[in-house]
């Protein structure tokens, strides 16, 4: 309905413009043309030069203006929804950036503040090795840390030795059992006089080990996925040892009972 009602006003608009441009109404124009046909030789009645070009230009200008008005109206109608969609899009994209871009397959480090070679990063591939046998790992721990290395006399079947990592007074051995890691960290440093190490407080039960002559305190930790992690800390002289595994209690007790120094 709206479109139909606009068409007559558009015609009137062109008619008005024609009258404004030439000074004649449609009827007057028709009469003038008919008269000109009758007296073609009268120079006073000849149309001015470029008459049709000017007429076309004016008509084109009028059409352009009309179209621009339509465009403005359309933009005004959809401006609010467009802004809303843009804001929502910006929020979604903005919050997603944090997680993306952190993926990759390289190991790298960066120092945020400061510049220059002021921090020496010690991580390198030599520190992370996969000895052919656990024996080599125990030997290396004793040789490099100067402490008695703890070794497992018993590990459940299908336990796989994954790697040994050595870093500034620490040795970490990792085993894989049933899809999860058994970890043992052997450290040169004394923890007695250091910041809070609360293993003594949260223990669940004690395992007696005759090989190293210690009562080992065991923590039983419920994980967020409902599984149970068992962990224990052993201290001897200036060294300390930390063992953790997601495994049955029976197996963990058996492992601790058969721990001995290499």
């Amino acid at each position, binding site marked *: 309905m709206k479109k139909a009602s606009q068409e007559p006003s558009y015609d009137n608009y062109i008619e008005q413009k024609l009258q404004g441009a030439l000074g004649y109404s449609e009827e007057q124009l028709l009469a003038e043309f008919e008269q000109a046909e009758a007296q073609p030789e009268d120079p006073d009645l000849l149309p001015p030069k470029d008459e049709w070009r000017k007429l076309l230009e004016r008509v084109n200008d009028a059409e352009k203006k009309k179209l621009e008005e339509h465009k403005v109206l359309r933009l005004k109608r959809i401006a609010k929804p467009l802004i809303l969609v843009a804001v929502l899009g910006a929020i979604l994209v903005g919050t997603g950036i944090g997680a993306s871009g952190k993926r990759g397959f390289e190991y790298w480090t960066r120092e945020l503040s400061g510049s220059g070679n002021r921090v020496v990063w010690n991580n390198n591939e030599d520190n992370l090795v996969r000895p052919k046998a656990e024996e080599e790992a125990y030997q290396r721990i004793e040789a490099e840390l100067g402490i008695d290395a703890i070794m497992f006399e018993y590990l459940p079947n299908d336990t796989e030795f994954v790697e040994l990592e050595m870093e500034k007074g620490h040795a970490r051995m990792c085993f894989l059992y049933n899809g*999860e890691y058994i970890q043992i960290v052997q450290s040169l440093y004394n923890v007695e*006089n250091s910041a809070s*190490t609360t293993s003594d407080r949260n223990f669940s039960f004690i395992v007696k080990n005759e090989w190293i002559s210690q009562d080992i305190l065991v923590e039983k930790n419920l994980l967020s996925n409902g599984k149970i992690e068992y962990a224990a800390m052993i201290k001897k002289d200036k060294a300390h040892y930390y063992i953790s595994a*997601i495994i049955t209690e029976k197996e963990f007790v058996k492992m601790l009972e058969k721990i001995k120094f290499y």
Partner: protein
Amino acid sequence: MNKLKVFVISVVISCLFSPTVFAATKRGEELTSIRVESRLLPPNQKSSSNIPMPETRGEALSVSMLDISNDGGGVIGVVAMTILHRDVSWGMTTIYLDRWNEEKNTWEFIEEYITEFPSGNNNGETTALTVSMDITNQPSDFYYRIRGLHEIEFINSSDRPMWEGQTTCTDGVFITKTP
């Protein structure tokens, strides 16, 4: 109601109820603070270790360890370990270095060091996140301590992306120029 309004409302509703597909990463100051108290160890004690053992543990993050040591010659030795139960897709260790201000009787934050561990290490499997470094640009004859923020992201057994983090903090160790 025209089609455009229906479309916009549909987009808003779908945004509100769509699941989050990435874990939120919390930043350090929310989790570890300069206001955490630490003792000043006797100057003859060369190192301090922290192995916090909370009663609740993560599904992938077992325990974190943090060490600071007076390595002599003004070198501050740092080791941070994040021990894992399973492979993780991403990890980050942030270490904050604090210096003891004797006049104000308080710890002052000096610098932070960030190590990021993108998916998989050189062996294709991440069993722990370890950072080891020597800080050599700080003045000697001051007490220093470090605070650690250990973060990981992984896909849990229910196939959902998870974030887990733990904080550590050592006691103050006196850093000397002499070996």
